[in-house]
């Protein structure tokens, strides 16, 4: 296997648990997801040489269900953005059936869309964050990438559900959401509807709009009723994510001091100098800019942060309102303008994710589907966003869009 794709390959994977739902499935996780005894460096010098002491809950659960964990894929620094990320390549090259990624801005869905595979971000609180090295605790989520909807559903089933070690998981029993694909017969919805997010189209060029219109016709043909939905404040998602995300990231990175693990600068004269130099040498330019920005709001412009928090509550409310008359929202995953060159500024990172980050802001589940939006800039991915907890509804709706025989490509 390729070390360009894997940052760590398990030399002797343990024999998989017998008879589990994932029996025989091969999986990889990003190096930001803890596997006991494996280097968990999350793409950052700040965690250089850090060996996880415990399995992340998702790792423990997917192994218990019989999956074989092949290794770690590379990740952008602390999962922020997609620079250097190899999760989707591992899938595309047929090295694994499913990969798990941390999703802060929509990294999982955008990587899946570009690679032409399925990518699913569960509702916030549905899958445990224990063992995930993330940046933005209120938005981070473990996303699942796979080549088939069945694999996605099976992996979700295996890893979801309450975990005492993640305090942000709600108390709502999972059974309340058990509907749709893979659940008991007769529970399926007879008719489904989706709201087309009008504002999301502004990010598409003419070619992009054309394929999107065509995709919508296919969706209608599959029996999903469409309706236009005006989301007036769509642009605010990005700003709110940027302010709150950077503030939380600034705090989250406080623990990376280079003392107990990670890179520690040599020859510092006192502890302040040691902190400054270790952190200065550890973080990459883009992440550093993001952390500075967060520190700015924390120390110098707290009212702006408070405003972002109240806007976030309003956006979550609006998100629920938009879903009043429809089962889900429908929009592209990537915009045509998203460039292939690596992002060099925080804004360039955000330029890649304007259509995915709303689901991180509100905690709603979102699913990207391959094959609907082929453009010269690659597959843009057709994205479905459901109500919080409506994870299975999305998988069921997606199932209707693919005749069983031509599911993955």
């Amino acid at each position, binding site marked *: 296997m390729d070390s360009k794709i894997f940052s760590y390959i398990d030399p002797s994977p343990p024999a998989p648990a017998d008879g589990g739902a994932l029996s025989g499935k091969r999986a990889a996780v990003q190096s930001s997801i803890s596997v006991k005894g494996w280097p*968990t460096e999350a793409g950052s010098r700040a965690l250089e040489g850090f060996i996880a002491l415990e399995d992340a809950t998702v790792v423990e659960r997917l192994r218990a269900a019989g999956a074989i964990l092949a290794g770690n894929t590379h990740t952008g620094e602390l999962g922020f953005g997609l620079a250097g990320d190899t999760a989707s390549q591992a899938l595309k090259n047929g090295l694994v059936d499913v990969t798990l990624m941390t999703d802060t801005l929509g990294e999982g869905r955008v990587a899946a869309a570009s690679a032409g595979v399925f990518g699913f971000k569960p509702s916030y609180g549905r899958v445990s964050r224990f063992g*995930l*090295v993330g940046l933005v605790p209120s938005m981070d989520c473990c996303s699942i990438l796979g080549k088939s909807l069945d694999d996605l559903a099976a992996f979700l089933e295996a890893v979801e559900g309450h975990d005492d070690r993640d305090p942000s998981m709600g108390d709502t029993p999972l059974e309340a959401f058990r509907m749709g694909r893979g659940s008991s017969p007769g529970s399926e919805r007879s008719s489904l509807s989706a709201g087309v997010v009008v504002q999301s189209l502004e990010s598409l060029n003419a070619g992009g709009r054309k394929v999107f219109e065509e995709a919508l016709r296919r969706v209608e043909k599959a029996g999903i009723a469409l309706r236009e939905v005006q989301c007036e404040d769509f642009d605010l998602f990005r700003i709110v994510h940027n302010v709150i995300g950077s503030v939380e990231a600034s705090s989250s990175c406080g623990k990376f001091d280079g003392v107990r693990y990670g890179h520690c600068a040599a020859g510092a004269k006192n502890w302040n100098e040691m902190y400054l130099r270790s952190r200065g040498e550890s973080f990459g330019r883009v992440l550093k800019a993001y952390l500075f920005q967060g520190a700015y709001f*924390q120390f110098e412009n707290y009212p702006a942060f408070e405003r972002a928090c109240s806007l976030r509550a309003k956006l979550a409310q609006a998100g629920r309102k938009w879903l009043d008359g429809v089962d889900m929202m429908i929009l592209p995953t990537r915009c045509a303008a998203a460039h292939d060159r690596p992002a060099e500024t925080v804004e360039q990172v955000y330029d890649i994710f304007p259509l995915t980050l709303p689901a991180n802001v509100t905690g709603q589940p979102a699913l990207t589907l391959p094959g609907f939006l082929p453009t010269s800039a690659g597959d843009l991915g057709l994205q479905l966003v459901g109500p919080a907890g409506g994870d299975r509804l999305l998988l069921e709706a997606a199932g209707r869009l693919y005749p069983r025989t031509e599911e993955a490509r």
Partner: protein
Amino acid sequence: MTTDHEAVIGLEIHVQLNCPTKMFCDCPNRAGDEPNQNTCPICLWLPGNLPRFSREALEKATLACLALNCDIQKESAFDQKVYYYPDLPKGYQLSQFHHPLAKNGWLNITDADGGTKKIRIQKIHMEEDVARLVHEKEGRTSVSLVDFNRAGAPLVEIVTQPDVRTPHQAMEFLRCLRSQLRYSGSSDCSMEQGTMRVDANVSLRPRGSDQMNTKVEIKNMNSIRHVGDAIAYEITRQANSLKAGEPIVLHTRLWDPDNRVTTAMRGKFEGPCVPDPSVPRIVVDDAWLEEMRRALPEMPDKKAARFMEQYGLTAEEASMMSAERELSEYFEAVVEHKTSPRLAAQWISGQLLPLLKERNAVLPESAVTPECFAGLLLMLAREEINANAAKEVLKRLQESGDTPEEIVAQCGFRQVSEAGELEALVDRVLAENPSAVENFRKGASKAMGFLMGQAMQASGGKANPRLLKEIMTRKLQ
């Protein structure tokens, strides 16, 4: 202080809750263990870990707030107090800054003139303790070692309104607060052990004014006495500055108990407080709060009132017997054995407590069980032994573990109350001391005391003093 100024003092008290575990993990919350023994990936904040808020910490904190007459807030939440220092392994401290657990408390204290003064409590919030730094030398190099045993220990911080005016009031308030919190069972409140830490904010203003002037924070007092001394010093220091026309600047000073002065410390960095996204908001409902109220024991004020009502103690005796929860429980256990409550209160405060103090012993572990002590008092009341003998028996009780009846029998302390025996004794003493008898008859009543002493001595301390005096008085007439 000049008489035209008054001090405005606010106190901030950190109290460590006596929960078995830390606030966000299951590590033992225990002092005195080997460094870094009580740690785990959560309290070391290793990557991938999330805080798990302890329900027990919430319960103990709530009891503490109720004991200080606070309103428990329906919703409270943790914030991140951001600062970088080696005692804080994640760069922020989890503390309830924006939404504290409780507000609007108060305690009534007794002022120097005997009047009652109400000190208001602005808020009480929960927070985690930080690690302990140990500065040492390795050869000629200074090293700073970090002990994470204390990191994450559950604390509440109590912030008063600036209602305190004098060092005396500050000390009274702290004694009262300590008593309330110990009573509630939420904390040991030992300033010596560091489970209670007090900072004082002191400023001066013209008497009668309601302005708030620049305050100076003083820290590092490790007894209530030191808090009083440090505040007194600081008031004088500021008054002298004002007299000399020097401005007071906002800063922090450390109390130096050896030299009895405060000295300025390096400016402290105050970081921002942002809501913590990982610890869920704390929402308490009425039923749970009612349960907590019921879990709160009878507090000293109420208990003292009941002691007066139920047992007929004087106000002073009642307040003495209810000052500490263990003492009050001991008192009631003694009274349950049908001893006279007032006699019990007098003997506990007058004899037992001084004896324990002298022997460096504490009530709960004392060999003098309530049953033993009650047995002793009952013998005293039945005049089987006299007070002198009872004091002697008490000393032996504390040492031996025998019952009071056994000790009295072994040592022959049983009181002589047989009239014939006492009459003979008195006759002998009067015959041996004719001049004293003569003096008494001339009106020197002091001579009676002397003769009683002689007689008691002659009985080996065992004579029933009441009967002895009766007989003596009769024979002298």
